[in-house]
């Protein structure tokens, strides 16, 4: 007995995706009359972090999606409005009552770029051989997937050993379910398949040239299943490792678009004042990051909850938002960002900036200032991932000094940082990032659960262990009732903010710099990682 699965997006599952996209478009721009899109044109996009592997089914990361999502498609994409998914390769889905079976109906008449038909065999292969077996996040989400049955060419039935929340699967679909062509990958070494640099997909654009270090060229797919799209003739992703050069190229009119904050933060305001450019902070609601302050709970002083709370009070997040993020961010309140309306709760312990209180708490915790005004010293190891993780380290050193903690700062390059902090735990306090992926179960609970071996970045390497926390995370993982699941995650957020093994200090989206000649942009929550089938130049 099947029943209609919960969650938004279900009501429009039989609509053409094109119609859904138009609806999103209309909803996105009512405030300002948009010029009509025209067909044709070459879009020039900055490609700041060039990827050796563009197989998004294998490597689910932002930088890969930026290029690959135009070529390869997932089963569904996030909708233009807050929350919900709209169909792409899957046109509809149902979950069985026991939570162990999900049936996907697949779009008909879809062709791979090499002319072969897209069928349920491609979905079966991708799910079993790639997402579950090899993909960095799919391995966790699809760990209980036991089989994918294909009764006909356009139906795929996913069978799970343990109940899996449909809510989680739907939240995971846009990022984790990129479908690969079985005929090009079956029986090959998938990780080293030469197609990974030149993927063949079903998307609105074909990848026609990949000149490493120079550019990646995509051309319009004339046989795209949505006959009305795409609008653009060509997209050129230009490899530019230097952010200052990207800002200059924007100014010189050599670029139409850069995503994921690819210009230096201090240049953003200046670029926004230019008449040809627009700085856009929307369209990243599905790619929210936290800038975190992380503690090593093996350090005796930091073992004391009062000390961690005192440090939380010592940090002026408002100052960081204004001066490090140039205002394009806001204070974080917990491990789930406020944009995730389904799961977010504001009802958690907070730590407003209050240096006097921080000083008092440290005194009371048994760490009075010594003769030189210092209470104790900590090894501060700011993460090198982003400009802001380094700048936050600079700020943190000063904030700690004000409350009598001497921070000895040392910055490593990414490879070394991973080993020093996440494997050897040779740190006391560090800055970092947490990418929230639309459901706490995908990449958030792993920061708080026990049981991850040393060396795994973006996991609980803090020595944090709370049985109550582990119990909530375990229970939520197999809870198929969405309402109960949400309640469990509210509890998860409260415990996280009470124990603060890490502080999700700042909640930030990314920023794009866009030419004003473009229309239909930033109209869904994962826009930079979506297909751009409706993106166009203004007529």
């Amino acid at each position, binding site marked *: 007995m099947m029943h209609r699965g919960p969650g938004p997006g279900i009501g429009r599952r039989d609509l053409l995706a094109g119609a859904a996209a138009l609806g999103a478009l209309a909803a996105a721009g009512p405030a300002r009359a948009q010029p009509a899109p025209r067909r044709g044109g*070459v879009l*020039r996009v900055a490609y700041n*972090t060039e*990827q*050796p*592997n563009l197989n998004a089914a294998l*490597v*689910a*990361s932002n*930088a890969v999606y930026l290029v690959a999502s135009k070529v390869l498609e997932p089963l569904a994409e996030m909708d233009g409005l807050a929350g919900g998914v709209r169909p792409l390769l899957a046109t509809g889905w149902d979950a069985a009552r026991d939570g162990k079976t999900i049936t996907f109906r697949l779009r008909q008449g879809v062709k791979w770029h090499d002319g072969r038909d897209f069928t349920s065999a491609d979905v079966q292969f991708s799910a079993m051989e790639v997402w579950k077996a*090899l993909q*960095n*996040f799919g*391995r*966790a989400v699809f760990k209980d997937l036991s089989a994918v049955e294909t009764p006909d060419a356009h139906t795929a039935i996913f069978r799970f050993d343990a109940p899996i929340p449909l809510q989680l699967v739907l939240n995971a679909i846009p990022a984790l379910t990129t479908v690969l062509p079985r005929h090009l990958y079956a029986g090959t070494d998938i*990780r*080293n398949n*030469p197609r*990974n*640099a030149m993927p063949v997909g079903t998307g609105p654009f074909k990848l026609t040239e990949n*000149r*490493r*270090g*120079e*550019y990646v*060229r995509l051309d319009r797919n004339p046989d795209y299943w949505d006959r009305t799209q795409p609008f653009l003739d*060509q997209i*050129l992703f*230009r*490899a*530019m*490792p*230097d952010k*200052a*050069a990207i800002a*200059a*190229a924007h*100014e*010189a*009119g*050599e670029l139409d678009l850069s995503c994921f904050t690819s210009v230096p933060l201090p240049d953003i305001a200046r670029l926004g004042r230019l008449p040809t450019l627009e700085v856009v902070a929307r369209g990243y609601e599905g790619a929210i990051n936290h800038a975190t302050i992380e503690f090593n709970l093996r350090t005796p002083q930091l073992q004391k909850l009062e000390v961690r709370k005192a440090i939380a009070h010592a940090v002026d997040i408002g100052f960081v938002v204004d001066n490090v993020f140039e205002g394009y961010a806001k204070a974080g309140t917990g491990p789930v960002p406020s944009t995730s309306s389904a799961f977010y709760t504001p009802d958690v312990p907070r730590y407003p900036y209050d240096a006097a209180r921080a000083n008092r708490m440290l005194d009371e915790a048994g760490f009075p200032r010594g003769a030189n005004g210092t209470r104790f010293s900590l090894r501060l190891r700011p993460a090198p*991932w982003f400009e802001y993780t380094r700048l936050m380290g600079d700020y943190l050193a000063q904030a700690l000094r004000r409350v009598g903690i001497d921070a000895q700062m040392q910055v*490593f*390059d*990414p*490879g*070394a*940082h*991973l*080993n*020093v902090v996440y494997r050897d735990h040779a740190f006391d306090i560090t800055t970092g990032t947490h*990418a929230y992926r639309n459901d706490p179960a995908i*990449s958030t609970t792993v920061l708080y659960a026990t049981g*991850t*071996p040393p*060396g*795994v*970045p*973006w*996991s609980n390497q803090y020595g944090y262990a709370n049985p109550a926390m582990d119990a909530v995370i375990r229970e939520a993982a197999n809870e198929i009732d969405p309402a109960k699941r949400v309640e469990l995650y509210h509890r998860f957020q409260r415990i996280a903010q009470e124990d603060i093994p890490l502080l999700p200090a700042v909640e930030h989206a990314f920023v794009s710099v866009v030419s004003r000649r473009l229309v239909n942009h930033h109209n869904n929550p994962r826009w930079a990682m979506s297909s751009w089938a409706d993106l166009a130049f203004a007529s």
Partner: protein
Amino acid sequence: MNRVATLLRRRLAQAVPTLLIVLTGNFLLIRLAPGDVVDTLMISQGGGDPATAAALRAEYGLDQPWPVQLALFLWKSLRFDLGFSYFYSERVATLVFDRLPITLVLMGTAMGVALAIGGTLGALAAQRAGGRRDVAILAFGLVCYALPSFWIGLMLIVLFAVKLQWLPVGGVATMGSGLAGIAHGLDVARHLVLPVATLALFFVGVYMRVMRAAMIEVFTQDFVRTARAKGLSERQVAFRHVARHAMLPLATMLGLHAATALGGSVVVESMFSVPGVGRLAFDAVMQRDVNTLLGIVYVSALVVIAVNFLVDVAYAWIDPRIGEG
């Protein structure tokens, strides 16, 4: 011709131990940095599980003890086998030789330009040492030498690409332009003006000073007085007789700078989005891509050895006494 053959033999005999030291040294250096290519692969993916990491390490041979890895690497190097890059999933030889030409063009042009401008300015300054022209040229040289190239590059971009819009911001050719033949050549040349200027400016300062100092010294020698006594014009004396002698130290500097210029290309190639080996080397270090980095070091060492050989040949041409016997 015999002199050149002797030189070549001597240089080749020196090249083998040089290469071995360079390769072993670099292998050990990168081993000292914490982290390996599997770590950086995991970072670039935004995370991953430890079982995958262990499987990758076994597949790439990174679980072997380092002396075994080093011996294997040296043995392969002897047979000109540069190995496989696990970060790029590509043969290292393909990666390096795809990118080497543009770096050599960049480096060669920059050195040529620096030699021509620096040499000429140095000669002009030396003609009337202490004069007003000399002071002006010296000041210019000092500025060239002292300004860091990442700043010069940015300022050139701001002025010529952003404000005046005469030249492109970066890259090596207009993307997807479909140009061919001479039009393509001109397009590439236009793209290379700013990177070449950035790389060359530093060396202009150096060569100018070396040339000036050498010429001032040669001017005091007896044969110069003889040449003047013969009734040669001051210009003929300066450029025919003095400059030729003064070029010897300049050639020495050129040989030494071949390696410096390769290093400088790291900064310039990143700033101007030039897909050369300098940028590849920088990425390889950041990604702990040992095979690619050592491949680049290997090829770069060969380039530097070759340039120095050419410099030796140039010595022999400038000064016939060198290389005899």
